[in-house]
């Protein structure tokens, strides 16, 4: 392996699933193949191919409007796609109905704007899915919710309403709400962008913890610290295309494409 050939050394270009911590190959968890989508004339997703392995953490980066959110939302079908396929743990995304709802239960999603259910208490936010979708008893769901709230550090707020919590606390509850479903993969769409700076780390810490425990994660974020600490691969998007896939180390120190260099120049200078 001392003769590194850039043409074949997938591991250093990051183009395939990263190996797990013991160096072994990973099973694919999310497989995105040839996905296209338009918003009117705008070709917002252009022939996207990406495979995320079990337990892998992929950070998606790119300028605003490049299609990161749309890709994230397409993975649990909050946006429809025109061509291509997306499958989760070997199962293609169903079109709609009960099967789609079942699949979504396996895919956690954390939004930039938290989106906690405003009319429900923190505990009710976390128990709603387990009770209605997983058919757990109220008591069982409640015990689980309290454990999860403890884990993300907001157990003291369980009986409050979302509006009574800080942004950082709300986002940690949103993560707990997703975890309560026992998801196979978690999607994060700029989870810290709406937060005051002093609250960013409390949310990132929870996410780093999840990554360490082996959760499969796709994270849209511009937090370099998180990418370096937790990501196996970085996916750089621009104008609806995946422009570059690399390890964090490679991407931040030696980006290959001009778009990526330009982008990094902009976000690193402030």
């Amino acid at each position, binding site marked *: 392996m001392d003769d590194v050939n850039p043409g074949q050394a997938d591991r250093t270009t990051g183009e395939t699933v990263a190996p797990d911590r013991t160096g072994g190959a990973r099973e694919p968890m999310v497989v995105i193949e040839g996905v296209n989508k338009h918003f009117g004339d705008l070709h917002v997703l252009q022939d996207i191919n990406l495979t995320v392995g079990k337990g892998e953490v992929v950070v998606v980066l790119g300028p605003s409007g490049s299609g990161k959110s749309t890709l994230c939302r397409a993975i649990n079908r909050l946006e429809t796609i025109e061509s291509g396929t997306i499958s989760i743990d070997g199962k293609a995304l169903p079109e709609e109905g009960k099967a789609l709802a079942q699949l*979504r*239960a396996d895919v956690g*999603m954390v939004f930039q704007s938290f*989106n906690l*259910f405003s009319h429900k208490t923190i505990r009710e936010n976390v128990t709603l899915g387990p009770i209605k979708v997983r058919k757990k008893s109220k008591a069982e769901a409640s015990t689980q919710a309290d454990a999860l709230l403890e884990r993300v550090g907001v157990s003291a707020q369980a009986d409050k309403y979302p509006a009574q919590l800080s942004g950082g606390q709300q986002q940690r509850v949103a993560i707990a709400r997703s975890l309560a479903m026992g998801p196979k993969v978690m999607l994060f769409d700029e989870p810290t962008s709406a937060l005051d700076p002093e609250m960013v780390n409390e949310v990132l810490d929870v996410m780093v913890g999840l990554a360490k425990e082996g959760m499969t994660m796709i994270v849209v974020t511009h937090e370099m610290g998180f990418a370096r600490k937790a990501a196996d691969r970085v996916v750089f998007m621009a104008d609806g295309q995946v422009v570059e896939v690399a390890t964090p180390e490679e991407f931040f120190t030696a980006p290959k494409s001009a778009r990526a260099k330009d982008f990094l120049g902009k976000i690193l200078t402030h």
Partner: protein
Amino acid sequence: MLDILDKYDVLGAFWMTIKLTVFSAIGALVIGTILAVMRVAPVAILRRLGAFYVNTVRNTPLTLILVFCSLGLLYILQINLTDPNSSTSIVDNNIRWAIVGLAAYHAAFVCEALRSGVNTVPLGQAEAARSIGLTFSQSLREVILPQAFRGSIAPLGSVLIALTKNTTVASIIGVAEASGLMKEIIENETASFGVFFIFALGFVILTLPVGILFTSLSRRLAVKR
């Protein structure tokens, strides 16, 4: 002044106003809810029908609607809402048609109040509901409708108050409600501010508590965001 209260059945006339209000309000709530569901339904034809009803009815004067009910439906088309051979059939028919007309008219406003409630629920709430695996109807029941209802309490209160006052239009088709009696008193006696005052006070007594109740309800149940 107070002899008017002895000579005329003012309380009886206000009782009619209350009856018109309550029955029309129930009708308007039922029709309005159906219309609102139509207007947010995923079926285009239902949405268009709902919108057509609301836009037509809302832009037609209430007087015209009540005259149409009484003259058009009752006298010309002979659609009776009560036994035509009873001795009070004319009066009863007019009361019932007034209720139908008031309900049909205010249903359009109830629909819009409910729809404005749905619009107070941010899109992210529905997306979060779907993303934890709730089905369409579960999201509606558990997340969207409870919030939409709370968001429409204040506008529904306004519709109810408007309805109470709009029952006065029923006097033009011969329903003996409060404003009709007021006209009668003014014609028979010398017009005095006292008469106006009594009737105005009557309406304020009816509507003020409704306003206070709905305002406090909407504040108490408001969804904090």
